[in-house]
């Protein structure tokens, strides 16, 4: 009789272990499923929050400019049609003004202008209006601190409303740089205060126009 009980106990133990293993496997399967689901849901929640915030923000703007909505519409249409031309015009104006500074301060080596890091901001997707960022790097040398501050002041003052000075560096040269050598070879006056000014232009652009 007891032999049967032993067999019975063995069976019970076997099925208990089997059931536990099954339960563990199922639990791990559910665990991975639920984790995937929660990650997906959190992403969705983030997107929904962003979308709602954008919508609230839009509504705020709408409520602000509600009275001038027709003027805004005109400007919007103008931007759609003219944005690329406006940017070209703006850069040309800037270059003209820089030329004027060259003459005004009688700089032996004119201000060197470089453009770089042109990019479109990653705004809301599927939006036809965006911000076009273009960077101008101006390099020049002044004879003393006074002239340096005046040139920087002039550059800042002629910048349009949407252009920002992002970086200025000034170094007093105490060695023979290629610029100094050039100045010496042409018997120019020697400007020891070398400067670099980084200007970021921000312009509204119709998406697709580079």
């Amino acid at each position, binding site marked *: 009789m*007891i*032999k049967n009980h*032993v067999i019975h*106990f*063995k069976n019970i*133990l076997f099925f208990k*272990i089997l059931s*536990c293993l099954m339960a*563990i496997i199922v*639990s*791990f399967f559910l*665990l991975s499923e*639920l984790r995937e*689901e*929660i990650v997906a*849901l*959190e992403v969705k*929640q983030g997107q*929904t929050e962003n979308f*709602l915030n954008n*919508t*609230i*923000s*839009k*509504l*705020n*703007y*709408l*409520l*602000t*400019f*509600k009275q001038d*909505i027709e003027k*805004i*519409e005109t*400007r*919007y249409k103008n*931007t759609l049609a003219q944005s690329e031309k406006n940017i070209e015009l703006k850069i040309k104006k800037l270059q003209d003004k820089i030329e004027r500074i060259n003459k005004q301060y009688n700089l032996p080596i004119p201000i060197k202008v470089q453009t770089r890091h042109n*990019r479109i901001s990653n*705004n809301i997707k599927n*939006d*036809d*209006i*965006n*911000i076009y*960022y273009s960077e101008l790097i101006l390099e020049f040398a002044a004879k003393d*601190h006074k002239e340096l*501050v005046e040139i*920087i002041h002039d550059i*800042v003052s002629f910048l349009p409303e949407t252009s*920002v*000075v*992002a*970086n*200025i560096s*000034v170094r007093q040269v*105490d060695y023979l740089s290629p610029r100094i050598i050039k100045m010496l070879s042409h018997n120019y006056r020697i400007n020891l205060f070398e400067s670099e000014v980084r200007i970021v232009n*921000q*312009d*509204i652009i119709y998406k697709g126009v580079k």
Partner: protein
Amino acid sequence: MLVFVLIGKSGIYFVSFKKGMREKELFIDKANQDNVIYYSEFLYEHRNYEVILLLDHDQINLHNENFVLKDSSFFYNPVKEYVFNKFDKSTITSYSCVIGSNNAVIAEDDVKNDISAPVFGNIIGNDGNIAKQKNILMATIVSCPFKGTIEILLDYIFLNSLRYKATYFLSLALPQMAIYALNNSKDNYSAFSKEDHGFIVMIAITRASAIIISFTHRNKLLREFSVRCPDDQSDIYIQGLIEHLVSTKLLEFKDYIKSNNLQISMIFIGNSSIAKNMNDTSYGRYKIYVLDIEDGNKNARNLDFCDSKIIELFNKNKRHAAFNKYLKSITKMQIANMLLFKPMVIFIFSLVAFLIMLQQNINNVHNAIYELNTQYQIIDEEYKKIKEEYPNIKNISKLANFYKTESKLRKKFPEPIQDIKKILSVNANDINVEYLSWQLLDPDLEDKNHYNNISIDKKAVQMDNKSNIKMHVDLKYTSANQDTEFAAKRIDVLFQEIKNIYQDSNVYIRQDDKKIMSLPNMLTVPINIEITEFRASDAYGIKKLSDNIMK
């Protein structure tokens, strides 16, 4: 929670213990002990208790065997092998062992009384004292066939899924019980000393096994027997019977006691007048210890039975569990069940709890998304109202984006001129600005691909609508005066001047002494300054009317 079942010579005694306290008891006499009906109700009431069997019935055989230990085999157990070979697999067996000691004259007694024959004849010396040798293992082996009451009881236990724990033989537990009883004796007149551990006679009047008399020396059971307790006789008769039995057996151990110079102690379990009477007779020369029974089970003649006391003592001295092949398998499976299954169940419950927590989180996120959607619907209603106000304008949403972008471009950033002027103002005859860098760090202006390389506190900038201004200035102090103390004072004044200029900023001034250059008629000290400041940018100036709508 335990149920002890004492299967004795006169019947079965059941007693349950809960939290160490005796709870309930039941006695079935020998005539009815094989009928489960009599105790099924009791066991059913205690179905969650663990059941321990304590055997002391007629069919128990006790052997004393001696074995020679082989030096080289430390793990070799000759008793186990002997039991395996000698007994049938279904026989329940258990044994206790004592490594050779000075009490081993027992071998002589065993031979004399034919209790058991030594396995190895050559281990008995001429004086009969074999245990002087340290390599002798003396084993007391107890066995009983697996049939009759035990089989019926265990079958009932297993069939009804009761919690079987173990089986023991009372005989093997008696030496420990005797020593434990003496150690815990409450008798004030006889402080128990170690010498009293010598030769112990334990007498107990039980209902299940009648009168149990055991003779033990240290951890060794020398003899144990029981005689029926006549119900119809007086206490004096029973006292006389006990005295006769004890005296007869003590005569058998006379040489043993004498040769080992042992003192005899007697333990009488039960607050019985019999023990007191014995103390007054010739037994007074022995130390008699009486263990009180608080709640004795009395028979018709009001005679104290000490079954529960015996079990209580046994409960504190459980040793040498008994097995046969099947009980061993069951015990192993129970251990496996405990070690494997319980941790597994705990692990599964933890997993399930974690899953529930995850599901709860999912529900919370669902609710949050639903809440956001509800808010969106409210905002959308407002949109619709504005659209209705201006039916001619089709692209009202795009206009909002356009206006937002325009507003963003109107943001006024901090300008550099004043900062540069301030820094250059520190220029003096002995102080020269060698390098100056002014940086405007703003996430709107920086290429997002380059964010990682720029140290902008984006959160601070976005939350407070501030731009991070960072300036780096390299100054050089140059003087013909080589007095370093003078230079240090001058530099301190300069530091204070800069700190006064940038009161609202974080100013870090670093001066590397290793770079100080001292030339003839000239001392130069390079100084690095770093200035950081969160400076307000002009806000967009948008009225947050939608907040009111949300409310």
